[in-house]
């Protein structure tokens, strides 16, 4: 049994939790400002998923850019890759399902895993104009296994219904997604407080595990809709000593993953 770490922070717990979702046979690409997913991909490859193929910065096929630098789409991410993937090829692989896994975050996430990164308020005259849907407008519709992460677990982020559906999650729940012919969908939601999944029938978001020191009451108070609560709520599985060492010394010694914990001006 690997030795369990005692000294770790929430960003590290999030990276480790996400890393453990990746499988050795996966082909994964990352998007913009995605320090936590990129660190998780690197960690998965260095531990339980050595066969994982990463299209780094959406371009560098099987690149090895460790350690993590300042921009997750920068050419420095393409180091030691076997190919610069032309983006039209990338989209054909995404459409065909060769690339099957993607990580998403957004300003609003609703109980069925739909994500908004477009506007708060009305589209034409928004209260807040957010950056935009970008790749999530594609990935939600193209059968991806989606992992949602956010560092701001608050009622502003977790809402009953998103103001704008930038990314198709489970739509209105139940079999709505399936009826539209869309496969897979959101698998897990990893936040600064807990981990959540989706109840298989209703597709309603459900608490899965609590991070150390976080209570059920706190999570419910910070969630803008009623979460499904399972009978048993385990603590989020802690990192191992080796995972933390790799993360701090090899993968992200500069602590880029912590950049995601700055307050987002988007929501100010």
């Amino acid at each position, binding site marked *: 049994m690997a030795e369990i770490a005692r000294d770790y922070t929430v960003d590290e717990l999030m990276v480790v939790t996400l890393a453990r979702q990746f499988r050795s046979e996966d082909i994964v690409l990352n998007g*913009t400002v995605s320090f936590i997913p990129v660190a998780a991909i690197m960690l998965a490859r260095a531990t339980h998923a050595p066969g994982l193929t990463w299209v780094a910065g959406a371009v560098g096929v099987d690149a090895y850019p460790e350690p993590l630098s300042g921009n997750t789409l920068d050419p420095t991410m393409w180091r030691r890759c076997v190919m610069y993937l032309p983006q039209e090829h990338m989209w054909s692989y995404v459409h065909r399902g060769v690339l099957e896994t993607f990580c998403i975050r957004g300003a609003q996430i609703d109980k069925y895993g739909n994500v908004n990164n477009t506007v708060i308020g009305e589209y034409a005259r928004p209260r807040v104009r957010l950056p935009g849907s970008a*790749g999530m407008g594609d990935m939600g519709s193209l059968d991806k296994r989606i992992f949602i992460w956010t560092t701001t677990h608050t009622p502003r982020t977790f809402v009953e219904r998103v103001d704008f559906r930038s990314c198709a999650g489970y739509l209105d729940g139940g079999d709505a997604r399936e009826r539209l*012919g869309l496969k897979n969908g959101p698998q897990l939601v990893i936040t600064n407080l807990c981990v959540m999944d989706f109840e298989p029938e209703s597709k309603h978001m459900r608490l899965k595990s609590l991070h150390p020191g976080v209570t059920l009451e706190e999570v419910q108070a910070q969630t803008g809709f009623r979460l499904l609560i399972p009978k048993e709520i385990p603590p989020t599985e802690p990192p191992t000593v080796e995972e933390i060492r790799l993360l701090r010394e090899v993968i992200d010694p500069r602590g880029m993953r912590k950049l995601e914990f700055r307050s987002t001006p988007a929501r100010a």
Partner: protein
Amino acid sequence: MAAKTADKVMTLTEAATLVRDGDTVALQGMGTQMSPLAFVRELIRAGKRDLTIVMIVGGIGLDWLIAAGCVRRVIAIIVNLDEFGMAHAFRRAVEAGEVVMEEYSEHQLLSRLLAGAYGLPFLVTRSGLGTDLLALHPETTRIIACPFTGQEVVACRALVPDVAILHAHRADRYGNVQFFPKPIWLDADVFPRAAKRVIVTVEEIVENEEIRRTPIHTGIPYFKVDAVVEVPYGAHPCSLYPFYAFDRALFQEYATASRTVEGTRAFLDRYVYGPTTHAEYLQRVGGAEMLLRIRKWE
């Protein structure tokens, strides 16, 4: 079409006259990478108005154009300053109703541009099914049934920009444009094929014989190109891989300054309206010391 040996070399000022008020302008740029920003500064100084800017990923150049009042409409999938946060001029203008954002998913926008490049009425995708994006613009994206299988797909209407503007590594005087490596991002690949006119700024103009020795690097042939402008560091503060990295300091300065209208204005005064030449601009943003830093990729 242009002759094989028509000399297309121009100054920034001359090339800017090829962009007219009200044009739909496809502007290259991928976050902190590969954007013709010297040309963008020239467009601002030339006082262009009512432009529709097409970018896959809208960034710092678009935000400057909006702040300077050049833009009426944006066609893009996202507009931000990458890890430096929001594009504030864009956000303010859309929130105030001064600029319209026509938002697509990436493959929808690519499909529109590819349809334009092929001269087809539309191409189809599955991107965006189940999202609210489709309802935004029924005049350009609509769900249709496959005539063979009945499967529902999204028809994406052809988009043909009036002019495409790119920054590349080098070209000859006739407009044979080379990239090192060949175009990876969609804009360098599809914009010149979809647009009616093409303006390219390059780090260096080389002899036609040099192009013929290295045709593997040529991404756009002379017959699609209308203007070539030599502008070393013409993507600054964006990067031009592998020649130079993006200028983190200037990105951060703009991200901070642009939080207010006054700060944005002061930034434009200092770095866009102030310098009368590109050389003067490079001096003002840090000169030789800065150039050495970005060439070393940290």
